[in-house]
């Protein structure tokens, strides 16, 4: 495997204490390498979102460790963790969290500005990121003046700006129609093909289809996962030919 960007090692997360203790994850190990898109599927309560928040350093494991590009997140100070999150990680959440008072370009460049990048550079990077998601012309629009699909693209551009190495997506297609949703998945796929590592949490198998590997979570453990493409392709070759 090429270089691992994200490593979860024997990660357990327990919420609550005593009688209300809930094991959201139990001893989960997962490695996502550069260029790889991994989809995580499972029923609600299986630990999908917990896994994503741990991978993104938004929450800390009860046991085990989370490493991003070789750095154990638990070893970092709050400030260092926040810096790493801004530089290495991109998030696309179900609710887009776009700031209504900022234009598309301003929303996208915000994480870079927070990181101390000069405004001019941040603006250029934002333009490039918006270009990449196909809405360069909407740079000066406000979120309220855009369709749901366009807003989603802004959120993705924000997750991609500044060459993030790890992209975390939680149901990124939200309520988009199937074709716009597919365009979003294509973007995520392209980003991983260009060298990022990606995790996609979804309950839609059609979206998981874009991943290199699909991990099935159940009651906080990895219940199963798909085999590598070449293995599957040779099995399918008997039924479907191109």
């Amino acid at each position, binding site marked *: 495997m090429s270089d691992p960007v994200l490593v979860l090692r024997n990660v357990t997360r327990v919420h609550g204490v005593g009688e209300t203790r809930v094991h959201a994850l139990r001893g989960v190990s997962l490695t996502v390498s550069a260029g790889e898109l991994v989809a995580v599927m499972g029923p609600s309560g299986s630990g999908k979102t917990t896994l994503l928040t741990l991978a993104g350093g938004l929450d800390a494991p009860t046991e085990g460790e989370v490493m991003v590009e070789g750095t154990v997140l638990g070893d970092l100070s709050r400030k260092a963790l926040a810096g790493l999150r801004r530089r290495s990680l991109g998030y696309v959440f179900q609710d887009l969290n776009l700031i209504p008072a900022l234009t598309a370009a301003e929303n996208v460049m915000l994480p870079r500005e927070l990181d101390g990048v000069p405004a001019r550079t941040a603006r250029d990077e934002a333009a490039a990121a918006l270009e990449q998601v196909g809405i360069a012309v909407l740079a000066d629009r406000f979120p309220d003046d855009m369709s749901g699909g366009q807003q989603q693209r802004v959120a993705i551009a924000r997750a991609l700006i500044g060459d993030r190495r790890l992209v975390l997506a939680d149901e990124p297609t939200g309520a988009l129609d199937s074709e716009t949703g597919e365009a979003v998945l294509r973007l995520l796929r392209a980003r991983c093909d260009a060298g990022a590592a990606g995790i996609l949490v979804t309950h839609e*198998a059609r979206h998981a*289809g874009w991943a290199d590997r699909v991990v099935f979570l159940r009651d906080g453990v990895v219940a*199963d*996962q798909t085999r590598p493409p070449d293995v*599957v*392709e040779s099995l399918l070759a008997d039924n479907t030919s191109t």
Partner: protein
Amino acid sequence: MYGYQLRLEFEASTGSTWPLNVGQVYTTLGRLERDGLVRAVDTAEEGQRTYAITDAGRAEVRAWFATPVSRESPPRDELAIKLALAVNAPGVDVPAVIQAQRTATVEALQAYTRLKSASADGDLSWLLVVDSLIFAAEAEVRWLDHCETRLVRHRRPDRRPITGTADVTGRQEARR
């Protein structure tokens, strides 16, 4: 058009998902000719017969496009049959059966998606066929999720050490 060309056109549109036997094409053309839906217009030196559609044939094609595909007798579904039998068969780990199928179906879905992304600007007909395979696989996964949920609700009582009442309830429900 002659038989071989028809076969090529069909396979180009459907991405060879349903390979067509050329013999089958000629038999069908023979039947269509018998019924007056096509007529032979020419026979080339190599013995290839060229066919043209007749007015009656055109009307038949229009009618075919205008009529919904019949859903009256559902095709045999081995997976539905397998699960229907598994829930009552002794010693079968039904959740494991469901998960194994889910993984296999998602793997197929990934393979279809790779086909699709490899032909991003591909032929529209072919894209529609791949999408059909993808949506069918997705529906299967959703149905498997549903089966699993239903199974959990249904099975919960008799997971406990078997008591007379739980056993009776279980059987009655299974018979429904």
